[in-house]
């Protein structure tokens, strides 16, 4: 059985309400169309403060401030049941929830082309704040106050008004801008560059946390596979890449290289499978799978939140990172012999997709639905999606899995609700597209394995490929993570003795039949 060890994981959030209320896809469209002034005017009244975001249980679950088990037991709605102060800290076991001003500083630090200008006093203030973040390197702090990235507000204003820049805001005032990267190239507009730099910066934050969480020296990281939603390129190659290497550079991983994997929301799961295969084969010593978050997804459903008088919760750019090492028998393992694959010919019916991603790989491995302690499909927070009419996505997914289990006679129909409760997962991820796609559970799931509470969980990602207008197909992939085997993967390969035992067994069977 080919397998890799899951050494460590990191999950971070960057609070970005002001950036989101200007450049999130929905608010931006409303602002530019000029047709939805009522919504645009109302949105600021629905934003939550950083303190509210810190006290919001799904956010703390994402960064590991509270355990997944505790999260499951909390009273809902989470908006009305804020966590107590001692559980609402900036830093969790997996990562942090960074305030927006520091995020703007980090974005500036990740800029190599003088594209981000910050007003000098703002840049100075946020660099001092970032210096107190134990995960941010000294080099990054210094980059925030590079003279070439600091310009007074008059120059910033001119850049926005005369050369298509975009303002960056803090406390309702412009504190900087992202400049246009080219006078005519549509792939290098200030808007595209803001999205890409924010994706890069949030990816850097997740990678920095991963390095600390794992104890791996930045210089020892071999390879990065990045799997966010953004496309970085120019008019000659619209999504040429490479976020992975750009992120590794800022994080000081001088001996690493990297590449990007995309697939809409199925990107992270495919990236995990790619990385695992490379580590298991020995092609790479170790790999960090990393994804930064998405500015366009901020406040995606806020029209409905505003309409229904709710808090607009989609205010965080999400990121994650997972470190894979060769399986030495001590770490939770990702199996490469049980991979769900949604084939071209499988069809798009939910039944076909669910079967391809759960039943078929489990059956091939001699496992059944009940052998999987937890299924982690799309983990969107339902307090975000339900008011927008998208329902409770993780619950809908586990219901489908349970119904399929009943059809396959793995679960009694009378036990369907019990199966849903015991084997499902409650969503706690921001609607960042790729981020909710199963991978937020890798951290909590591995913790549960390490605590001996579960033996196995399945991560499922599905992607809406049809959005790109290339095909009507969707995509999906899945994999299993299991408890450590206690022995290195190499020792589980077939040995001479195994072959001898098999031959003897076969011969005795033949002998039995002859008798």
């Amino acid at each position, binding site marked *: 059985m080919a397998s890799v060890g899951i050494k460590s994981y990191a999950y971070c959030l960057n609070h970005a309400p002001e950036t989101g209320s200007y450049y999130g896809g929905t608010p931006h469209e409303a602002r530019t169309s000029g047709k939805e002034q009522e919504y645009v005017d109302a949105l600021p009244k629905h934003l939550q403060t950083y303190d509210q975001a810190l006290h919001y249980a799904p956010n703390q679950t994402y960064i590991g401030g509270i355990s997944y088990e505790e999260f499951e037991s909390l009273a809902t709605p989470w908006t009305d049941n804020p966590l107590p102060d001692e559980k609402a800290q900036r830093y969790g076991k997996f990562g942090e929830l960074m305030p927006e001003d520091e995020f703007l500083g980090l974005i500036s630090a990740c800029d190599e082309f003088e594209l981000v200008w910050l007003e000098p006093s703002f840049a100075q203030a946020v660099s001092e704040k970032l210096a107190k973040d134990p995960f941010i390197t000294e080099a990054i702090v210094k980059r925030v106050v590079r003279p070439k990235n600091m310009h007074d507000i008059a120059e910033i204003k001119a850049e926005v008004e005369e050369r298509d820049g975009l303002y960056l805001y803090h406390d309702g005032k412009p504190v900087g801008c992202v400049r246009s990267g080219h006078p005519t190239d549509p792939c290098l507009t200030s808007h595209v560059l803001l999205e890409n730099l924010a994706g890069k910066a949030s990816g850097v934050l997740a990678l920095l946390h991963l390095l600390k969480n794992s104890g791996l020296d930045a210089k020892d990281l071999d390879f990065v596979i990045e799997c966010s939603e953004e496309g970085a390129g120019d008019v000659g190659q619209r999504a040429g890449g490479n976020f992975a290497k750009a992120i590794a550079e800022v994080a000081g991983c001088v001996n690493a290289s990297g590449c990007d994997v995309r697939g809409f929301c199925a990107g992270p799961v495919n990236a995990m499978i790619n990385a695992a295969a490379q580590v298991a084969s020995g092609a790479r010593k170790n790999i960090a799978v990393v994804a930064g978050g998405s500015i366009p997804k901020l406040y995606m459903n806020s029209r409905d939140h505003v309409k229904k008088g709710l808090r607009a919760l989609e205010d965080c750019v999400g990121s994650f990172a997972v470190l894979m090492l060769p399986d030495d028998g001590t770490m939770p393992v990702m199996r490469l012999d049980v991979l769900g694959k949604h084939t071209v010919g499988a069809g798009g*019916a939910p*039944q*076909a997709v*669910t079967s391809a991603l759960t039943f078929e790989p489990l059956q091939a491995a001699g496992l059944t639905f009940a052998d999987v302690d937890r299924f982690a499909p799309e983990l969107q927070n339902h307090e975000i999606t339900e008011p927008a*009419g998208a*329902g409770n996505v993780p619950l809908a997914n586990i219901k489908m899995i349970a119904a*399929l289990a*009943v*059809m396959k006679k793995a679960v009694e129909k009378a036990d369907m609700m019990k199966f849903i409760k015991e084997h499902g997962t409650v969503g706690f991820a921001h609607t960042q597209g790729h981020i909710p796609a199963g991978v937020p559970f890798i951290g909590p799931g591995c913790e549960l394995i390490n605590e001996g509470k579960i033996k196995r969980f399945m991560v499922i990602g599905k992607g809406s490929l049809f959005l790109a207008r290339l095909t009507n197909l969707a995509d999906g992939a899945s994999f299993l993570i299991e408890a450590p085997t206690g022995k290195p993967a190499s020792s589980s390969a077939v040995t001479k003795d195994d072959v001898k035992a098999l031959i003897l067994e076969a011969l005795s069977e033949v002998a039995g039949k002859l008798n």
Partner: protein
Amino acid sequence: MDLQNQQRVKDAADKYGTDCVVILGSSDAEGAEIYAETVTAGDPTYAGPLAGVSLGLPVYHVFDPIIRAECDPAAWEEQISMMEMVLEPDALAEAVKGMREQYSKNVIE
């Protein structure tokens, strides 16, 4: 209903009139009702090509017994039976029926 699908339905209705049957697969009753309204009375959100256009098409949810009876049982078992267990088929069919009875100019007999 997204704008492209509204256009597709409009194009089909232009060609086939009210002989064009719309079958919905929406998983929630509220959505199914809005889609049914869109292809009968017109787009209630006034955002798409069917805003102010009352096509009056016969519209059914795939879980409506009339549609179910038309389907190949083997294909139904393979493609739809799982979702039948997960969703509330009767409520979905009823939600669409309400709109059909009010606004459709034709029905399957």
